[in-house]
């Protein structure tokens, strides 16, 4: 009996399918309770006023959204988020690619190097941020002490106490934590490229750069697309690094959308505003993902 001649009921409710549903049920319940329900609730919350304990009090329609779009700090936070993401992802991409190339070369101690480079990724992000906070301390931190003691920079900037140093310092920590992800993904991709391609290229007279651009990069195309999309989403939503290092200051100069959500919700207890910003963040990232996916599938079909 062919599959097409089976009824719908027989296709979705046969003994094998029933077993699959039972096994999937706990996960589905968990996701529904801890993921889908909160997401839907946040969407609903964005159309209501809330009290200090996040309970819905009054339906206001799109007034919350209009209020946010009229707030200049919202637009600044959005702009900072875009700059943060653009610089962060491109830095992680370039440095990750460089490290992957270096780790792909055979040399003594390569295994140790590979293990060492994974440490930032394997460590807890808040712990890493706290450690860097100590490094950045203007008076007792390792960075300023080293810069002034060696004469490289006799009067280094005061840690994260000024806008540009605060942004740069936070950016570096985010990049430092994120490099291993790109490095590992690209390294795995490089190792999957058949070495015969490089041998053939070499026999045809191609040099290292030509091989890299003609063989390595095309071979990593899909991984590049997926990893940059994931990294963009994670970087856009990187709350831990900024909030631990700078508290979104000084004077909100490192405040991005995700930290703005936290401050509105848990510092000022304006859950409705926080919900609106969460929805807007979700929409932005969804649009980026859709554009990415269309580009990816178009390339694949080409």
């Amino acid at each position, binding site marked *: 009996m062919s599959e097409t001649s089976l009824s719908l009921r027989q296709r979705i409710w046969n003994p094998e399918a029933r077993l699959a549903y039972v096994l999937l049920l706990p996960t589905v319940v968990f996701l529904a309770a801890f993921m889908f329900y909160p997401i839907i609730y946040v969407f609903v919350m964005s159309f209501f006023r809330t*009290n*200090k*304990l*996040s*309970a819905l009090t009054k339906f206001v329609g799109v007034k919350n959204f209009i209020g946010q779009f009229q707030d200049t700090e919202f637009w600044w936070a959005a702009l900072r988020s875009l700059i943060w993401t653009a610089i962060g992802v491109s830095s992680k991409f370039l440095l990750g690619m460089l490290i992957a190339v270096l780790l792909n070369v055979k040399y003594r101690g390569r295994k140790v190097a590979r293990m060492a480079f994974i440490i930032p990724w394997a460590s807890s992000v808040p712990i890493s941020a706290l450690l860097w906070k100590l490094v950045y*301390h*203007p*008076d007792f931190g390792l960075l300023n002490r080293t810069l002034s003691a060696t004469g490289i920079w006799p009067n280094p900037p*005061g*840690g*994260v*106490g*000024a*806008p540009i140093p605060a942004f740069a310092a936070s950016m570096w920590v985010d990049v430092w934590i994120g490099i291993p992800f790109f490095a590992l993904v690209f390294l795995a991709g490089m190792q999957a490229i058949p070495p015969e391609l490089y041998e053939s290229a070499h026999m045809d007279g191609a040099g290292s750069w030509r091989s890299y651009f003609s063989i390595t990069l095309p071979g990593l195309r899909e991984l590049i697309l997926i990893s940059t999309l994931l990294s963009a989403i994670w970087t856009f939503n990187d709350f831990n690094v900024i909030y631990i290092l700078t*508290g979104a*200051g*000084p*004077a*909100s*100069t490192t405040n991005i959308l995700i930290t703005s959500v936290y*401050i509105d919700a*848990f*510092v*000022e*207890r*304006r859950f409705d505003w926080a919900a609106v910003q969460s929805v807007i963040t979700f929409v932005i990232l969804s649009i980026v993902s859709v554009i990415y996916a269309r580009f990816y599938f178009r390339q694949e079909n080409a």
Partner: protein
Amino acid sequence: MKKSILFRLGVVILLFAPIVVWSAPKATFFWAGYDGLTEDFRASLESAFNAQSTDAQIQIVPVPWDSLQDKLNTAVAGGAPPDISVVGTRWILDYMSTDSVVEVAPYVSKATLDNINPAAMEAKVKGKLMGLPIAAGARILALNASITKEVPRTIEELERYAIRFNRPPQHYGLFMPGKEHTELTDFCYYFYGAGGNYFETLPDGSYGKCTVNSPAGVRALTFMAKLALKDKVVEDNFTTYDRIHGHPLFYAGKIGYVMIGAWVDSAMKQAGATFPVIYADIPSFAGQKQAGLIITDSVAFFKQGQNLQAAGKFVDFFYQKQWKGKFDQLIGFPPVTLDAAKDPFWNTPLYKALNHAALTARPWPLVDGFDTLNHETWVACEKVFQGQATPQEALDAAAAAVDKARGM
């Protein structure tokens, strides 16, 4: 065989059921991490109460101050608040607006209530006591007497002395935090000293629009910026310091003048500081009335708590002189209880200064939306410290944000 197992299981359940059924109700108390308060004290208080009580038990949960409000709000919003918690008295209005707290009197004995200094009962709202005072302290000026002995009578004199005794990087004239944190105190010292009020008072006594951008506010913030950016008498990199991380600079002997609270003596002892200290009122601007700041914390009872009666029994036990008095000595705040206040421990220069400052000190405004006021005022201060706005511009933006949040 099956019947035998079931029988044995039933016997075991019956044997242990009385323990489950008859265990004393256990109340939960969120215990704020005051400077100077030790874990040993918390543990011994918990053990002592539980040992002597057969019909009530307590679990004291230590929580750092910076995360207390978050933890409490999460617990309340989740429908599982503690029975009692230390709260900043100004938080009580927020909890009342969500019907989360209850009046204290039904759960605490009359003897305990009568033993509390009436002047400390800040949490009385419309005649009902909504929080039992646990700590109340005016803020004072502390001088490192090995650097300076000059007690300023006005803020302008404080500036002159800070400039005179400023010797960076060995020591600095004055400590001033420049980084946002949960307390708004440092701006408030100058603001109250300039005669400022955070809100206008409406004819019915309620609070109207935010007036942090009044001439007094601008004067205060302009002065703070001058101290830091023009006179340069505050610690280097002051924009990276909040109160918690900055006051140790004073304990380390690197600051001449600091505006601080009652914990200074206890904290200095724990830091091993040995230099002499002079205490005085925080001065006001010349021509302004003396007006420091007094801050009270309270113990609030939460409506959805499961064991409020047990919590009340614990509070009666805790507020006895042997425990509350020791608590007060550790955190350094003057006692709110009448019997503990008679202890000769409080007959020191520090407490004389605290009592003197309390005579003219003003509390925080008890207003819904204080969190927004705190955050927006700090953002205004930081903008001025970073040179991004003038004090008037920054405070105008802060006042507008506060009014917007309060629906004004």
